[in-house]
């Protein structure tokens, strides 16, 4: 009887192990496929010309496969949207974790989380129909579908991520640290700025990077509101064409296993490398500045 129970336990353990393994297998298969379909383009164009060529004319004769304008666009929307989303997200997190009373917290937190649940196509639609005409008229621009519009919409999407991850980090700063600071005569603000924030810096950095990697990989919003011009932006009011929107817009009509098809997969590889680097950096920071318990006696 005891043996049967043990066997059963073992089986259940193995079952859960398989479940955990499935996501790794899925990731592995996707990576293999991505590289298999992306690499053949490098027989037609060198990796250097692919990454740093400034013209993207995949269907011209002869075609040009330079994705520098697409990379520049992705980096630009990510940077501008971070500039908007990081202060908003982190400050909201500080308010929620340190300043807000229980009632305010119970009201704000679900609302911020609801923002995360908004489908990206809805945000994109809002940007297209409401924000674009507004920007165009306010700043007297040729078009409201541009880098700034896309960045604002992406900021909407990364604020909830940045806010809820940072809030967890700030909230988990040991009570003893705060009490020690207050006991030494520091004000509430001094305690937040000099004790709580430094102690939760690794968590906040992770939050910021996760928010950024959400922004760089987001497709629907940039497809709808970024404008879609494949050129290197020179102002925040220029229309741009980030990598994901190129893939989404062109994949459906690219001839199967043609050069254009392989080039789009290669863009996918570049995107993958970007998000991988973001995640590795996030893991590194989280590990290096880990808060290892409170120093209590």
């Amino acid at each position: 009887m005891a043996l049967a129970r043990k066997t059963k336990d073992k089986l259940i353990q193995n079952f859960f192990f398989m479940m955990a393994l499935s996501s790794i297998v899925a990731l592995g298969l996707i990576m293999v496929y991505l590289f298999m379909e992306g690499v053949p383009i490098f027989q037609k164009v060198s990796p250097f010309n692919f990454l740093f060529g400034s013209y993207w004319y995949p269907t011209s004769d002869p075609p040009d496969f330079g994705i520098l304008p697409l990379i520049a666009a992705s980096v630009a929307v990510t940077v501008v949207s971070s500039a908007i989303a990081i202060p908003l997200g982190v400050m909201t997190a500080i308010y929620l974790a340190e300043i807000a009373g229980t009632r305010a917290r119970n009201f704000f937190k679900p609302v911020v989380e609801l923002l995360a649940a908004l489908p990206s196509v809805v945000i994109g639609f809002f940007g297209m129909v409401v924000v674009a005409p507004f920007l165009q008229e306010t700043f007297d621009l040729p078009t409201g579908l541009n880098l700034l519009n896309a960045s604002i919409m992406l900021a909407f999407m990364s604020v909830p991520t940045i806010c809820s991850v940072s809030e967890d980090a700030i909230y988990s700063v040991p009570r003893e640290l705060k009490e020690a600071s207050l006991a030494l005569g520091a004000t509430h603000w001094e305690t937040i700025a000099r004790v709580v924030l430094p102690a939760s810096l690794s968590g906040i950095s992770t939050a910021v990077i996760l928010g950024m990697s959400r922004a760089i990989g987001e497709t629907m919003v940039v497809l709808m509101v970024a404008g879609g011009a494949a050129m290197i932006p020179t102002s925040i009011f220029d229309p741009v064409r980030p990598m994901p929107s190129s893939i989404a817009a062109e994949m459906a009509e690219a001839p199967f296993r043609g050069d254009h098809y392989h080039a789009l997969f290669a863009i996918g590889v570049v995107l993958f490398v970007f998000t991988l680097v973001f995640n590795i950096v996030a893991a590194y920071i989280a590990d290096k500045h880990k808060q290892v318990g409170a120093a209590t006696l």
Partner: protein
Amino acid sequence: MKKIIALFALAMLVAGSAFAETSINVNGSTTVLPIMQKMVEAYMKANPDVKISVSGGGSGNGIKSLIDGTTDIAMASRAMKDKEVELAKSKGVEPNQITVAIDAIIPVVHPSNKVSAITLDQLKKIFMGEVKDWKELGGEGPVVVISRDTSSGTYETWEELVMKKERVFPGAMLQASNGAVVQAVSKNKNAIGYIGYGYLDASTKGLPVDGIEGNAETAASGKYPIARDLYIYTNGAPKDAVKNLVDFILSAEGQKIVKEAGFVPLTK
């Protein structure tokens, strides 16, 4: 009711003549692709025993697969070149050209734009990024150029008939569909774009090109400069299942689908 009975009879006939499932392969131009997809959807609904697979690899690709015998119907947005016809004949393939629809593309601007006529040459210069201000054409404000994704058939037609081997400049904003172009142009008083004839409505202003207004008649007569015939090619005169499909495409019902897909139907 008569129609339903006729359809039913046709279905029975097809089912009767072909005991096993018949399959038809269609390949070629991405311009013809949206028409063919809608056509095949409607056709397979009425004839569930016929399996048709449609893929778009470009006109050249479709013609090549017809010559190789890997496809039954090739879609093409251009007539076959002499070289291709020769190659086909040397392989015992007898290409048979059938016109299925007319593609007419209309340049559109915001309804408030003062410009009300344009020439092919001006269009080319605008899309090359050389004309940057509407002043040069009698309007006002900066020109915002809206184009289509380079893999779309509409872009292909535009590139061939307007750009004539020149490239649309990188500053053009690319939209993923005719509908998106209509949306973008109707929301922007500085914009110019181009759409398939079927998408023209009151939210944008279509411009006559070289003095000729683009509509079903001028496109069919060949007067309108940004229009071209769309073809399918079969090996010899179509037979059996392929013939049924071709007949359906050319029927009144089929031509209604052409119109729904945003193209100019054949007038008979």
